[in-house]
């Protein structure tokens, strides 16, 4: 006599593994697509400096420190300055499957700005933003700072109204 529940479980498992397979295949294709756009020489390698962009373009947001570790993991034993797709694929697949480095939700981002805006004015002065972003945490490079300022700073008030800024950036992405 078979235990009907057991059969049910088996079926479930089969369905489960098949859907995992499909999921995996989809992840692989998604990763391949994102990788290929940066593979300028079409030889299944990308410049190591673009790995961060690729991982983040796949919706994962590791910190700079975490990114550093990931690069160490996918790099060749003797670093060539290039990352091979074969090395990148399993690491990236695992990240997606484990849903690691989830992106920062909007409300948390707003909270962060509010912490920096200690006197609750609803804005940060350009100088304040520069100070926090280049001196605290994982500091921005000059290029990153300038790029952020170009969209964030209102030229007349010379400040960032962070609520509007976040709304604007979120709309741009959706």
């Amino acid at each position, binding site marked *: 006599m078979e235990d009907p529940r057991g059969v049910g479980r088996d079926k479930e498992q089969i369905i489960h593994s098949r859907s995992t397979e499909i999921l995996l*295949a989809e992840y692989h294709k*998604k990763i391949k697509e*994102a990788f290929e756009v940066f593979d300028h*020489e079409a030889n299944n390698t990308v410049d190591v400096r673009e790995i961060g962009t690729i991982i983040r*373009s796949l919706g994962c947001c590791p*910190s700079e420190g975490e990114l550093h570790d990931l690069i160490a993991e996918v790099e060749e034993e003797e670093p060539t300055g290039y990352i091979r797709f074969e090395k990148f694929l399993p690491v990236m697949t695992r990240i997606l499957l484990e849903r690691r480095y989830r992106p920062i939700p909007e409300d948390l981002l707003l909270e962060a700005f509010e*912490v920096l805006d200690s006197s609750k004015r609803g804005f940060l002065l350009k100088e304040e933003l520069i100070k*926090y972003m280049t001196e605290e945490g994982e500091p921005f490079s*000059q290029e990153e700072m300038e790029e952020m300022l170009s969209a964030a700073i209102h030229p007349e008030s010379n400040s960032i109204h962070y609520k509007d800024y976040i709304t604007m*950036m979120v709309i741009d992405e959706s």
Partner: protein
Amino acid sequence: MSTHDLEDMGCGTSSAKSDRQSEKVLKAALVIQNWYRGYSARLKARHRYALTIFQSIEYADEQCQMQLSNFFSFMMENYTHIHEKDPEIVSRLFGSTSQNNEDKQDYIRLIEVPDSYKGPRLQFPLTFPDIDLLVDAFKQQQILHARYVLEVLFETKKVLKQKPNFTHVTTSPSKEITICGDLHGKLDDLFLIFYKNGLPSENNSYIFNGDFVDRGRNSIEVLMILFVSFLVYPNDLHLNRGNHEDFMMNLRYGFTKEILYKYKIHGKEILEILEDVYTWLPIGTIIDNEILVIHGGISESTDLDLLQRVERHKMKSVLMPPVPLDGDRHTTLKKHKINAMAMPREVKSSTSMSEQLTKHEWEQIIDILWSDPRGQKGCYPNTSRGGGCYFGPDVTSKVLNRHHLKMVIRSHECKPEGYEICHDGKVVTVFSASNYYEEGSNRGAYIKLFYDMDPRFFQYQVTRTTCLKPLYQRISAIETSAIRILRERIIARKTDLIHAFHLQDLSKSGKVSLGQWAFSMENTLGLHLPWRSLSSHLVTTDTDGNINYMSSFQDIHIQKPVKEAQSTLIETLYRYRSDLQIIFNVIDSDHSGLISMEEFRSMWKLFNRHYNIHIDDCQVDELAERMDLNKDGSIDFNEFLKAFDVVHKLDKKHKSKSSFA
């Protein structure tokens, strides 16, 4: 924002803070930095996706262009009507150069420049002040009179004829050289280069590495400045042929149109002599016996010794490969010969035979003009462009070693930064048309070679506004424009796509999975794109992640010039409109812009047969009747094809998720 501002910042904001507060600040900064880096990376990826779309569509279009040459051979074999009525087409397609150009120069001197002409007046023989004069006049949007254009072309041809296939130049401590890539009729980029780097002169040597014309709006002006400068400094300014210095390419990519628009009376003569001038452009330049400068690239079989000896002027167009001397094609050609001989205006087919290159020679030149480097080893056909090859680092090393050279400098491919180095530094790409695909899409660059030093790169970007928009706005604009042209490709294949989706959607739910959708898109459109990432711009997705595949056809349709026509016919005409335009232009050898109904019908039937299009002849007949607006038995095909326009109802995709087309 300058460096100065950055260093000057934030002194004296606050003093002592509690440890807890400073930890909170640190965490907050980390959150913002992490979020921003993610945002910025996604922005960068979006920029890449947009460029990938532009490039894939550009190359797919080139592939269609290259395939036309098969159609032309097919046409010659099947469209006897042509040889009976118009031997000129036979000679145009099978490469006999017009011999009578020389007589025409006297005629040009008879063209009068009226007193009312306010544009620049050139003085032959040309001297440095003429370059200055021309640059100033073009900055004020003046147009050079056809008489001068023609004379510059004739003079240029005479001097070019004296040049070898490869020009040898040397640098010295007092003599450096500047190399520019594709300009594509972008006059502002040429002005910017001259502004930054100086006008050409004995002490300021230049190499322009092909693709001077097509695509941009000022091809004739770019060409005139280059040719006039070349005539003043024939030993200090070098011009290499690009794949767009080809009259058949100009038919598709805009230069022919530009000339006929700017020169209504003498346009035809300009086109005729230009066709000839192109064939005399040198193939490449060799600097210090070390650096090979050519437009596209090399192939495994590239043989510079052979290329030095080739009679380069026999290379008329990439669409006119040499006719093989044995097998079926030979008898076909014989048939032509007989037909052509019987013609009133005799085409000497025997001359046209000796006037063609061997297949091997022809391929050698095509490889130089059309190839692209790739990271993968070996040499294989350039499948995305349909011409030339892809060459790997091993091919580069082999060919360079074989000829005792150190480096290849080439152009031909748009690069985001204006230049790119690959193959271990042995291949350098330089591209000088900034904003090539769209405002902000890429920078332009030129290379300076100093004596005994590594090449130095100079980048620039032409901007119309003085104040740059923020990056995200610029990228959004590029992205919108890329998605727009992609949607136009999609709508042109609507019937085929729906068919492909239906094959996947067995339950007729109107939905397919993301993977199925991407598969159908890639296969039907023949474009290799990051479909999964692009899906959000093209289709709506339900909560389970399934694609409402009909949603890519909403808010866009092809405008029908003839209401009754069926959508498959409209899609086909729209899809092949550039090909048809070239075919009609070739038939219309006197550039009248008109072809007879009869010509239209038979050509269309041939086209259907060759491209395997299944459309009833009666539908086409009906269409032809309607196209003949004034009922005089002839069709203005340019106007007709222009009428096929895609209408975008909304530039940004509709937000509602449920609506169907």
